[in-house]
């Protein structure tokens, strides 16, 4: 399992892996928003948590279809399915690799991008914590979505239609935690809910993803 995670990480970082693309996309979305809504610092400060979360969501979505598609095309996915490692563990490893290559860098990059959006000073710690806590859920849900659409040509668009509604609760609690943190209110409740979502998806999603992978590989 560790070998699988390392292999996916190496593939993502090497040329053509698209490792930096998600981050660049994140940056561009955040830069575009002030052009759209205007440069007033107050407005930006108010919408910053939501913008950062939505942009992180979209950036994570961008790299989802790579989770299984390449392995499916070159035939290594059936090999993984017949290996002694259970398919659930394969799904978990894939989700972990996806998180390390997108969720973790997004979390770190969100802090300097918060400066661009004039995020409230008190909110930075909450932004870091909420993204660190919430992005694993994005990767896990996304792994399930990627497993659903793995056999389809042009599955990318369908993938976003399937996965984005599933992201709604994570987005709500994540952005709410940062907003409350920025306004100096107690943000424990949304943080706990966010942790609950991550823990729940961690427990269930590898099984759901393995189930649909087996159907797709049949």
């Amino acid at each position, binding site marked *: 399992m560790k070998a699988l995670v390392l292999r996916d990480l190496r593939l993502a970082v090497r040329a053509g892996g698209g490792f930096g693309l998600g981050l660049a996309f994140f940056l561009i979305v955040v830069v575009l928003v002030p052009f759209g809504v205007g440069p007033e610092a107050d407005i930006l400060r108010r919408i910053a948590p939501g913008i950062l979360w939505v942009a992180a969501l979209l950036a994570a979505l961008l790299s989802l279809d790579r989770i299984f598609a390449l392995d499916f095309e070159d035939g290594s996915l059936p090999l993984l399915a017949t290996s002694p490692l259970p398919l659930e563990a394969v799904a978990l490893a894939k989700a972990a690799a996806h998180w390390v290559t997108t969720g973790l860098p997004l979390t770190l990059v969100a802090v300097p991008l918060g400066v661009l959006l004039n995020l409230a000073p008190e909110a930075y710690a909450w932004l870091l914590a909420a993204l660190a806590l919430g992005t694993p859920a994005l990767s896990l849900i996304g792994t399930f979505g990627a497993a*659903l659409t793995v056999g389809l040509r042009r599955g990318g668009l369908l993938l976003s239609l399937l996965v984005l*509604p*599933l992201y709604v609760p994570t987005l709500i609690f994540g952005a709410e935690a940062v907003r409350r943190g920025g306004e100096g209110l107690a943000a424990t409740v*949304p943080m706990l809910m966010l942790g609950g979502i991550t823990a729940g998806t961690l427990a269930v999603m590898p099984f759901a993803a393995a189930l649909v992978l087996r159907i*797709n590989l049949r």
Partner: protein
Amino acid sequence: MSIWEYANPKKFVESTTPILPWLFALAGLSLVVGLVWGFFFTPDDFRQGSTVKIIYLHVPSALMAINAWLMMLVTSLIWLVRRHHVSALAAKAAAPVGITMTLIALATGAIWGQPMWGTYWAWDPRLTSFLILFLFYLGYVALWEAISDPDTAADLTSVLCIVGSVFALLSRYAVNFWNQGLHQGASLSLDKEENVADVFYQPLLVCIAGFVLLFLALVVLRTRTEIRLRRIRALEMRARRTGVSA
């Protein structure tokens, strides 16, 4: 004689053939009775005026939008556990009806909201969760459309329906947390305290019965269509295999 006998597609089609016209007739009858009664023979509400009468379309369609998803959830589970094709096809047949119900509920709600709240749309928890439900329906239908192999499609959409149900429920409570609403509480709860007044209640029940019957009739009709489509597909494939061109 058990209910599972109707899981045989042939048996299902045969046994619903005599029922279907009655279902449509009863649905039409109760809708006409309920709507005419509601629109012309109930008094105007003293605060809302005649706009209150949208309730006869709004509440039943909203109810059926949720019930359609629940039905899809149950039939999906039956398909995954017992592998009855009729069950999977019924789930497929119910989805577009559910989408329509969701749209009717959203549209009538917007028309009702404009005179009452002064806005067509507000990011109220109930409104928002219906919008999210609509997105779930879209994803479900899109997945059915995208996969060509019928059994794979049935399996994958069933799993999506189950996972989606969990997240739809989660979203329902998450939006509650996110924003406080304009929408009133439950119109129909079993404890009578906060229900609508009796004059409106009785025609509303007739309308709800009409919507339930209409939903059943449409789902049965569409399931029969799906069964026949499946049969045509099988015949075409057999013809292709034996080299006889149709």
